[in-house]
């Protein structure tokens, strides 16, 4: 647990104490942490990316931990929403962990965001440092949103810290069959705010509803609506479970060569995404889509 003085630290003091690269402190405005599993489902990844993009577009600074999975999706989403995002690191700000996120770290800086850390330059990744980092993330944020967290995940530490610091805690629901949503559902049962779209988060922060004016318009904005000219086989795909071309061919009684081709056409249009074990429906509109 973090020392009490740090826990109650005034915002300005905390901001000044952190080592930083990039624009720091960030521009004024609400700050929301989006955290979750390092190995999310396609659904969790899409949810984190979509929420971050919408929040960033509404002027919220999106905070996350630069880890694999949900963290990376949150940073990417904020950048794609032309917003500011801050990575709170468990290492010194002069090293990127994991190394695979070197490019992402550069993109965060290029988009006007920052990499910050409470640890001195040169601090390598140490297991015991990450819970303290999670406290800092909560301290920096007005609200913490958990997207997919299994039991005992680091995201739950961040949520716990947020509760102790009297910050808002919110969670994105998932499938009742998914072990990745056990943690999020436990938070919801204990009273965390339900997140179905960015507006839910903005409302808790007392901010306007101009991001998604029409609640009924949300599904279309989230990409659920079917493009009229788009190949209808897309409705046979799930947004959480990968379906293989073979399964689809069997279900639709079509030659597998044709199904592979039609899925590839949908992939080119950004309507489906390919994962290792098959295809899922893409929730976010791909950049190349009209």
């Amino acid at each position, binding site marked *: 647990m973090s020392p009490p003085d740090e826990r109650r630290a005034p915002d300005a003091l905390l901001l000044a104490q952190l080592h930083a690269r990039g624009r720091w402190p960030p521009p004024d405005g609400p700050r929301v942490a989006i955290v979750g599993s*390092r*190995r999310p489902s396609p659904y969790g990844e899409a949810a984190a990316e979509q929420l971050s993009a919408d929040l960033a577009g509404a002027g919220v600074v999106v905070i996350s931990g630069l880890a*694999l*999975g949900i963290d990376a999706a949150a940073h990417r989403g904020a950048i794609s929403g032309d917003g500011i995002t801050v990575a709170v690191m468990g290492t010194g700000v002069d090293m990127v962990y*994991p190394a*695979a996120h070197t490019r992402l770290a550069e993109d965060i800086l290029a988009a006007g965001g920052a990499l910050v850390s409470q640890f001195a330059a040169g601090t390598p990744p140490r297991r015991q440092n990450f819970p303290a980092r999670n406290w800092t993330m909560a301290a920096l944020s007005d609200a913490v949103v958990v997207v997919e967290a299994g039991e005992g995940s680091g995201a739950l530490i961040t949520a716990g810290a947020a509760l102790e610091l009297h910050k808002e805690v919110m969670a994105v629901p998932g499938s009742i069959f998914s*072990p990745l949503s056990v943690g999020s559902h436990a938070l919801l049962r204990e009273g965390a705010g339900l997140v179905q779209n960015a507006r839910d988060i903005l409302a808790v922060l007392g901010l306007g509803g101009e991001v998604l004016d029409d609640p009924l318009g949300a599904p279309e904005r989230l990409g659920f609506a079917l493009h009229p000219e788009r190949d209808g086989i897309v409705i046979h795909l799930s947004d959480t*479970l*990968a379906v*293989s*071309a*073979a*399964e689809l*061919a*069997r279900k639709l009684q079509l030659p*597998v*060569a*044709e199904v*592979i*081709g*039609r*899925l*590839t*056409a949908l*992939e*080119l249009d950004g309507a489906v995404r*390919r*994962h*290792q*074990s*098959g295809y899922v429906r893409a929730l976010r509109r791909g950049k*190349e889509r009209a």
Partner: protein
Amino acid sequence: MGAHADSLEHDLVEVHGQEEARRALEVAAAGGHHVLMTGPPGAGKTMLARCLPGIMPGLELAEALEVAQVRSLLGELPAGRPLDWVRPFRAPHHGVSMAGLIGGGAGLALPGEISRAHHGVLFLDELAEFQASVLQALRQPLESGRVAITRSGGSVVYPARFTLVAATNPCPCGWAGDGQRNCRCTPAVIDAYLRKLSGPLLDRIDLKVTVRRVPLGELASEPRGEGSALVRERVRAARQRQVERQGFLNAQLKPARLRQLASLEPASRRTLERWAEQKGLTARGFHRAWRVARTAADLDGSEQIAEAHILESLGYRLHDVAA
């Protein structure tokens, strides 16, 4: 020519489900393309690979003679039955030495597994477990269909025109992406594992498919597919078209000939170019997808390469997606 006995030892009719992999094998057999299958243990990768020789037409006389020559050099020609019409199938263990796979040994260099697989199939199971240097040595024969081995006593060239079928688990524990079992590998470990596979060898494999495990309970209800004999007839017709058009299989088409013999309809070209741009395809990758589309069109009995053929060929480019 009595190429195939009535019943094959490994027949596709025994394979339940796995439509994607079956189709990839058909395209491989038709155009001489190499295949990579990714899937968890027990998904049937070995069974699928063993079915490949049976969906290729039997050896021609000239081919059978070359196969016999390699066997003769090794002193392995069966007495009384020198000519074998069935295509070779070789499956060396991942511990195989350089000499064992490529050829070599003391004194006169002897043909290795790749030459024993000449005009047939070389199956490399657990691809990530092979020594990197051994896999590296496959590049030249994969391009040229021959292998040159230089020893102190001189150098020899052996034929090695084989279809490569490689198989791998999706991660070290084998269960990444499986619906029934949880993968225990960390993302970093999976990354390192896939990196081992990537690079020049993977770049030369045209067809990449995912193979999923069929749960035991569903095995009985999974439909059986066509038998090997039916598939072989389509493969034979597609090969015939290629031989009449250009004298050899599509996998060996050089880019210049490809432009000549595999003209793309405007929509097909646009689609291929869109993919190349989105996924950052290299020129090599671009031509590989084009060759596979040529084969898909040949299986369709079509001289023109339609957009559907290009789209199918792009569907086998699994690793563009990971990038």
